[in-house]
């Protein structure tokens, strides 16, 4: 099993290499010139050249043959891409063109907000989705089943950002039950040490802050959670139906095991494995879905951070943000694969 883990991990490397290559190449193929964006059209040629040199934009893209002749391999790698990867591995994704703030520290700053939102969305999707899927499977073909499946269909057919707008309109503007945007009401003074407001509010015993933060999480959490909810409902239902048709379920029923026990103990445990895959995959999807949700709810997370960078063409942020989200996604998928080994002992890794 250990060798499987190692191989799966090593398999990530070519993918991450490709991802970094793509992220590096796209802005350069298009010929966007960061030095020009930073200085504007009216800068003097001297300051423009100085900045290009400072940013290393005069070096060749991938390999530096002239340098290789005098300095060997080290000279060959004196090019933009090797430098980009080298710095990224050391946790340096460059600086914002405008604010000059390192991209990594911005990502660190905005990540907790996105992560908190993602957890809430996932919680909503699982807590509602798994029971709904089970209910639909147990009542297959009835009105209840049709209703649940319709909800699942609707969940993947709404534009998430539109659902967000409607929810703001109904629950924030119309009924006034929940706040329309942001993480905390502006009147609240709160110093968060980790960036996770819910966690910090609990550890600091600030219950009014906790309540306020939770209220802010409800609408964006539900909006972001709709698509995974719909997928989890469908997956749970079809997986349950498949397991319920197995011989050992019939055996259990035939020997007089209570229906509740058959469902909870015999069927559900076996049916949940594919559901866990979906949960894992959705987790990464949520990170990118957050770009839309965070824009609608003015949620100060990575998604909105990257989106703002696109509007201002701040390409180190776009590059760093995209690289970060893709890397997270790939790693989460690997962890999902690993988790099987512990959840399902039938799976043999060789």
């Amino acid at each position, binding site marked *: 099993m250990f060798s499987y883990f190692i191989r799966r991990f090593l398999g990530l490397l070519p993918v991450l290499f490709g991802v970094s290559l793509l992220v590096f190449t796209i802005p350069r193929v298009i010929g966007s010139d960061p030095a020009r964006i930073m200085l504007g059209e009216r800068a003097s040629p001297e300051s423009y050249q100085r900045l290009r040199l400072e940013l290393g934009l005069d070096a060749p893209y991938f390999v530096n043959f002239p340098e290789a002749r005098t300095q060997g391999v080290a000279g060959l790698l004196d090019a933009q891409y090797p430098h980009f990867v080298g710095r990224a591995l050391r946790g340096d994704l460059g600086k914002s063109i405008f604010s000059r703030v390192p991209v990594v520290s911005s990502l660190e700053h905005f990540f907790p907000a996105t992560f908190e939102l993602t957890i809430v969305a996932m919680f909503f999707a699982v807590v509602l989705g798994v029971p709904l899927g089970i209910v639909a499977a147990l009542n297959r073909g009835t009105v209840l089943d049709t209703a649940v499946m319709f909800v699942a269909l609707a969940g993947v057919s709404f534009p998430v950002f539109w659902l967000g*707008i409607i929810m703001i309109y109904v629950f924030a503007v119309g009924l006034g039950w929940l706040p329309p945007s942001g993480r905390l009401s502006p009147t609240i003074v709160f110093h968060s040490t980790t960036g996770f407001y819910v966690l910090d509010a609990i550890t600091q015993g600030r219950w009014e802050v906790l309540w306020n933060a939770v209220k802010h999480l409800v609408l964006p959490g539900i909006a972001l959670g709709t698509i995974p909810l719909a997928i989890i409902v469908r997956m749970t239902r079809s997986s349950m139906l498949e397991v319920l048709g197995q011989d050992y379920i019939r055996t259990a029923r035939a020997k007089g095991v209570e229906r509740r026990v058959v469902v909870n103990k015999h069927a559900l445990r076996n049916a949940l494995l594919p559901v866990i895959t979906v949960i894992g995959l959705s987790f990464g999807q949520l990170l990118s879905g957050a770009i839309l949700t965070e824009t609608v709810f003015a949620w100060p997370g990575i998604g909105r951070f990257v989106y703002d960078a*696109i509007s201002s063409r701040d390409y180190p942020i776009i590059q760093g943000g995209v690289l970060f989200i893709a890397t997270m996604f790939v790693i989460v998928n690997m962890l999902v694969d690993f988790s099987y080994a512990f959840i399902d002992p039938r799976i043999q890794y060789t």
Partner: protein
Amino acid sequence: MTTPAASLGPEDHVEGRSLLQDAARRFRRHPTGVTGLAIIVFFVAVTILAPVLRPVDPLMINLRDRMLPPTWTMSSQELEQKNLHRWSFPFGTDVQGRDMLVRVLYGGRISLRVGLEAVAMAALVGTLLGLIAGFFGGWLDTFIVWFVDILLAFPGILLAIAIVAALGQSLLNALIAISITYVPVYIRIVRSVTLSLRESEYVQAARALGSRSTRIIVSHVLPNGLSPLMVQLTLSIGTAILDVAALGFLGLGARPPTPEWGAMISDGFGRFRIAPWLSIVPGIAIFFSVVGFNLLGDAIRDVLDPRLKN
């Protein structure tokens, strides 16, 4: 493909029915599939017939009637005051006084067409690459699989956003970007079908008889990959419509006066406290058209592969 004996009625004992005829028969008995198809036909028809149904320019500015709510929600007094009919503007007007009904109809032309074209392009490129990878194998296969893995490392709409961010904002770039994100799915499907068929006995036999690779691909491999391709195609059109709208909403697709559903929602977003219909109406249009494609996709899956149905 065989039909399970249990689902055959007495009138079904007919010899020599083709796969397509068989599928069409099953489809007609599939209520949700028929509903989905009806929704799609409705949307396609009204968007194509838009100039006939409502001969008004979707870009025409009419400042006298700006920001009107759907006129059927207005009181008779208000209508009289503004000299309007109860059904003058059934979906209201926008901030420039443009008719929302016309804009939604014309928006459908863009959203549906771009969704369709993006998926068609992706399916074409993906099928070709999938065939090459599966049929010829070797380093080409390794390279294509690597390429697929890289593209799949970008979750959801992220890759499309990154591509448009680099290419620049335009509807065509949005189409290209969305198309690229859908390519890996088709490569995977076609490659796996091709791999399993390559070693099958009838392909081996065709090869032994001297058939060339292209002939084997066209007459043996492609027809067998058609069912999963069709299902995937229909389902992707729905999500592609959502993606087009998402890029439009983020300001990465169609430019503002162009009536595109996502851009229209974005336009209404800033004003939804005073004019909610501006974002509600295009959202409903997106919802129903996507529902149509999702219903149809599910039905096609049931119909083409009865073994999968549960």
